């Protein structure tokens, strides 16, 4: 019981110190301003007054926000967090910090949680800011969409953080960690519709395989879930989404789109922590 209390204490302390350090980094403020500024620019340019395939008002703004998030967030999470463990190892910060009564698990998950909060809170505030500003300007606020998108963003960030922390734990150098993260991201982007369609047409894969490949790609799951409430004709979704939503119900897919990335991130986080605490740390 006492040991467990100490673990929690070191997790909390590592999380705190990591947050303090990140709050002083230019990366964090650039990232926060990017999302906050993006929402402001969308309002200023009148995106809420435009309409594309049924998206209008705040819904239109939120969908655009999520599409931008899908492009920026995964690579941002990967690049900024993939160095956290391996970077501390290379700079000898880890040797010193782990000469203190800090548990390996507390160190790993403390960093994980701090990165999660620092990545999620700015995008959540930007989304919430859009909803609040919309309600002040007499726009209908789609709260169901707001809730869904908040959950999807949290799930996607958690997923890529888990992957990133895993890479950071096993990589031998920062360069290798960054390269691996970048290649992974390219692979996931390529396996959105582009390669899936190629496989479908040229290799004559059956639809089930295409759906399977789409469903294991967290980016594809996010992309499909973002549009799932809006596009009954599935015209803007792309081929993979079309196949996916033609096979499973929307409700089931939304549940999957939130739980699967969290489970995937949790699994990679667990593996990263296991590797971290069982191998030499320096």
């Amino acid at each position, binding site marked *: 019981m006492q*040991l467990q209390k*100490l*673990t929690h*204490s*070191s997790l909390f*302390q590592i999380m*705190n*110190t990591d947050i*303090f*350090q990140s709050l*002083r980094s230019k990366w964090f403020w650039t990232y926060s301003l990017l999302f906050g500024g993006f929402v402001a620019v969308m309002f200023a340019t009148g995106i809420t007054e435009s309409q594309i395939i049924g998206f209008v008002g705040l819904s239109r703004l939120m969908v655009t926000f999520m599409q931008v998030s899908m492009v920026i967030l995964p690579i941002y999470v990967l690049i900024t967090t993939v160095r956290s463990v391996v970077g501390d190892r290379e*700079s*000898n*910060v880890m*040797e*010193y*910090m*782990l*000469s*203190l*009564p*800090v*548990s*390996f698990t507390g160190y790993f998950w403390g960093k994980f949680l701090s990165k999660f909060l620092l990545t999620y809170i700015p995008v959540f505030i930007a989304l919430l800011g859009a909803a609040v500003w919309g309600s002040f300007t007499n726009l209908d606020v789609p709260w169901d969409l707001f809730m869904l998108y908040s959950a999807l963003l949290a799930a996607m960030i958690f997923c890529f953080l888990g992957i990133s922390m895993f890479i950071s734990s096993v990589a031998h150098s920062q360069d290798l960690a960054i390269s691996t993260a970048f290649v992974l991201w390219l692979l996931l982007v390529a396996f959105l519709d582009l390669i899936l369609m190629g496989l479908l047409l040229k290799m004559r894969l059956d639809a089930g395989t295409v759906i399977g490949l789409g469903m294991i790609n967290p980016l594809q799951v996010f992309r499909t879930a973002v549009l799932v409430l809006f596009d009954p004709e599935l015209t803007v979704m792309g081929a993979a989404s079309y196949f996916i939503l033609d096979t499973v119900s929307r409700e089931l897919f939304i549940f999957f789109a939130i739980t699967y990335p969290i489970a995937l991130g949790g699994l990679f986080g667990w593996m990263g922590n296991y590797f971290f605490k*069982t*191998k*030499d*740390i*320096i």
Partner: protein
Amino acid sequence: MTESENRAVIHIRQLSKTFKQQCVIDQLSVDFNSDDRIALIGQNGAGKTTLIRCILGQYNYEGVLEVMGMNPRKSRKLILQEIGFVPQTPPPIKLTVRELINFFEKITKTPADEFYKISNDLGLDIKQNFGKPFYKLSGGMKQKLLISFALGRKVKVLLLDEPSANLDPQAREILFSHLKAYAPNTLMILSSHRMDEIKDLVNRVIEMDLGKIVLDNIVTEK
């Protein structure tokens, strides 16, 4: 068990550590007792830092290594409550001095006043540097702060890896006087290249070469 093994704070038998087929510690057997003040000497690559990292629970190893009767990998946190450590090179920690002290206070459950006292003696005014990130302090200031963190705590083992490397002569003198006055029942292991500097401080000299102990001498007072 012999009497020496019974009172050993650190008990090592057949300890080996290998990195990619390169044996850095080779079948090492030794006991370190609570009244030992050890000069750990040897050339670069002799295995001194690797031994310290094994004791700190940072490396896996083969053989037996017990610190206060516990395995440093399995009971790392409990053991580290009782170990003060000063690294050879201060790490580039990005926390400010204030944040670092707060962190230390909470993690080690030691009042910050204990750290201030030692650092003042070493000629470092912590409060004047509160807002500065640790990595932006000069080499000497960083070393003084890390020494204050290690000596400000009441621990059973002090592991000091070249602690005086970045210190000016005056601070070096003060450090050694603090080490002399530190609780006599604390095991102290000082890794150093300058034997002349620490000879008055230690009562045992251990020399390592190629991962083995090649000399283990008790120093008798003149």
